[in-house]
């Protein structure tokens, strides 16, 4: 017999009364649908949930959620959310950010929130363009990209968001895309369940300034041969009937192979829980362009101390050792003398 979870809320309980103002056709709608559909399943209450965002198109997200929320400053959402999560470990804190917000102006805060392993679920909407400012290249735009600020093509080498997160000691790293609600919900569910900082890159389409950026990978025609679904403990295979797979060469390099040629046993078995992030890093860098097989799913999911809990533990430890704070004692702690 299995327990049946009766959701405390419905999707509607998570939708605010504000008119959604993204451009028609924006990938953000799909992501919002996935989040709002997922929420009742998580068994949490809207009043205990906080969405913090920075600035950018994606950062309007909190206005549309019937939770506590803050639309803050460009790049600063991870820092502000750290304050919320450390002050109130009882809350579910989500960060919604974009490629410019998280990786350009707010790079530092993202790195340190991940390093500290603050209990945040960070959703990075990566559309590889600045949308709100109407079409400049972003830190994830490909080299050579022609935009308003790069009429001769971008000469900036882009970030790989997953590499950045893994390099910043992230304990949970995943990728999903805006066209597959089920996949998004599955990844978000795991990200939410993870204690500590969870980082999710979402391939998100900006149909106005960078349309079809991911068509070569997530487009209906390409998906089957281009999307590699990572499943923990399973051999990494993809393509029609799983005819392709990933192997690790003797030089440590990951390669895409025909399963028929190498045999099933030669395939790499995905292990998201490996303490060492090397494999996750290699998988994050398997694809170098927009039309090569690209892994999706959870790359890394390991446990280590969660920051807010550790802050709380030190407070409890101090109280146990010194008793509750006594202002009279504090004022006298450096020695006193009497006059009169």
């Amino acid at each position, binding site marked *: 017999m299995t327990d049946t979870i009766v959701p405390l809320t419905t999707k509607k309980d998570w939708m605010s009364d504000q008119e959604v103002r993204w451009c028609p056709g924006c990938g953000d709608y799909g992501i919002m649908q996935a989040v709002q559909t997922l929420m009742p399943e998580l068994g949490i209450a809207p*009043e205990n949930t906080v969405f913090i965002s920075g600035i950018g198109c994606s950062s309007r997200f909190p206005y549309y959620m019937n939770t506590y929320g803050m639309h803050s400053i460009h790049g600063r959402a991870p820092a502000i959310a750290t304050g919320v999560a450390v002050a109130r470990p009882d809350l579910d804190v989500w960060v919604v950010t974009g490629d410019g917000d998280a990786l350009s102006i707010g790079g530092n805060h993202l790195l340190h929130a991940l390093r500290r392993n603050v209990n945040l679920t960070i959703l990075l909407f990566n559309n590889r363009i600045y949308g709100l400012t109407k079409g400049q290249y972003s830190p994830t735009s490909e080299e050579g990209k022609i935009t308003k600020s790069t009429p001769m093509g971008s000469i900036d080498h882009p970030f790989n968001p997953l590499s950045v997160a893994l390099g910043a000691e992230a304990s949970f790293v995943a990728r999903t895309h805006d066209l597959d609600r089920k996949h998004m919900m599955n990844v978000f569910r795991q990200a939410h369940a993870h204690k500590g900082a969870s980082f999710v890159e979402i391939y998100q389409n900006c149909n106005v300034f960078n349309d079809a950026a991911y068509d070569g990978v997530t487009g209906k025609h390409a998906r089957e041969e281009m999307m590699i679904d990572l499943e923990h403990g399973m051999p990494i295979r993809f393509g029609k009937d799983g005819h392709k797979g990933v192997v690790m060469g003797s030089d440590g390099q990951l390669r895409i192979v025909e399963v028929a040629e190498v045999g099933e046993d030669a395939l790499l078995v995905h292990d998201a829980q490996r303490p060492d992030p090397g494999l996750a890093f290699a998988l994050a860098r398997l694809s170098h362009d927009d039309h090569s097989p690209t892994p999706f799913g959870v790359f890394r999911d390991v446990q280590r101390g969660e920051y807010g809990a550790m802050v709380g533990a030190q407070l409890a430890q101090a109280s146990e050792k010194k008793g509750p704070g006594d202002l009279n004692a504090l004022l006298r702690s450096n020695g006193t003398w*009497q006059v009169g």
Partner: protein
Amino acid sequence: MTDTEERQDRRPEQISHVVVRFAGDSGDGMQLTGDRFTSVSALFGNDLSTFPDYPAEIRAPAGTVNGVSSFQVHISDHDITTPGDSPNVLVAMNPAALKADLHRLEQGGLLIVNTDAFDERDLHKAGYDHNPLHDDFLSEYRVVEIPMTSLTQAATEPLGVKPRDAERSKNFFALGLVSWLYSRPTEPTLAWIESRFKDLVKDSNLAAFKAGYAFGETTELFDHPFEVRPAQLPPGEYTNITGNVALAWGLVAAGQQAKLPVFLGSYPITPASDILHELSKHKHFGVRTVQAEDEIAAAGMALGAAFSGHLGVTTTSGPGVALKSETLSLATSLELPLVLVDIQRGGPSTGLPTKTEAADLNIAMFGRHGEAPLPIVAAYSPSNCFDAAVEAARIALKYRTPVILLSDGYLANGSEPWRLPDPADLPDISVSFQTEKNHVNADGVEEYWPYLRDPDTLARPWAIPGTPGLMHRVGGIEKQDGSGNIDYSPANHSTMVHLRQEKVDRIANDIPPAEVTGDADADVVLLGWGSTWAAIDAAVQRTRRAGTKVAWIHLTHLNPLPPNLGDLLKGYRHVLVPELNMGQLCRIVRANYLVDAKAVTKVQGLPFTSAEIERAIQEALS
């Protein structure tokens, strides 16, 4: 003369006060020496005021003038406020210290030098081409030459201390000597050395201290010791406190009085870091401290904590204020309580990190984009930093606004005796969180409006996450008056800008009126703020004793200003505004009240001397 008569002759001479300056290389332990002399004087019951003065470099090249670290302490048998304009005694541990600080010593002052440090190499490093001890260069002073290093070595040699290690104890020799000279009790210092050091280092320091004390007692270099009797301070229990510790304790007290946990987000910066250090020790008060990745994050974390129902605080100095500007603007727009503490130092940019200045009033007043008014509180003495912190928190919480609390390097590191307040007398600064919906919409449905204001204070409700039914979103985008929904309409923006200004303006009715001390009917009034309090206080007392009338108003609230200030200032022919900047308050006063105020400025990284203020008064009246 018999032995007894001789001993009687060497009984301490009573003096009312003395200013001692310990000066040496950064590695000579002068801050520690000064601090110990201060502590023992505090325990003895003197009134006192201190001025640590040290370089920005952790260890500048040894023996150079740039590496000189000094500690000036004024001890007195009566109420004093300043560390003294000119030291009566200078202890110079090396030629560089002599070079750096001799000009401060009063005419005829006592100069105690460590002759062991005056070899050719040390003299050269200090920039002397001659030995000032060998000619009449120092003839204006009473010079006492003591080979402190070798005497320390001799005293510690029987313990098995190597000469090189013994050298590190020579500051305790100096402390012992000066302790004898001013009849300080030895027990507290001996006990402190016992508790602070271990093994051979402890023994070496104890031996050096005792040797210094005995040296004063047995040699004929000094006629007799002096004694500064305990001061007749108001009855009570006292502790010696620095501004930064007082400020940190004030924040702890504010949390207690507000019944809220304190959350500090901070990034290390001189001279504010000690507040982070101090608050990190008080986790049992529920104080959370996070050393953030940068100044911006430190402010952001504090704001996030404030949104969540904590007393959010961020501490910094000038360069950090610049970085936190965007967060202050957001906090002004979100109308959430936040306390930003600015321990001012010499600027612009890195400026003089270890030296004092009070030149951040402009950035505190105006350093945000858009119309972003916020209240400003300024501490005026080391112990007043406690009350100022509670007051800044009170205003922030009651009016749901960021508040800037200004202190400076001089207050931060300086110390004075503080008559402990009774925590029961501290103000109750608690506020209520919103727990109920507060608006009925056109369809008769109850809602929560996050920007529906208190009609008196104009403060908006504070509903924290976890409160059922009051979920709401706030953001930097302009909000509709009342509902808080995004609203870009022209009339609404105008309403909101005016409301935010009006809210801050109304705080004027909730702060003490400006008070005149001294002679209310004088021709000249001094208008001060911040740490100039000490020098102004001494100058006003002396000017009045000399028969000249002078009035003085000292501000603790710089925005909004007390409502009666304009009228008060208009009653004087001369309005002088002494400031450690180029006239920042003066400009505000002139603009606000159209009074012909004149700035008295100093930007040397040093506090005013009282003589400088006295001179300014005389010049205004002549």
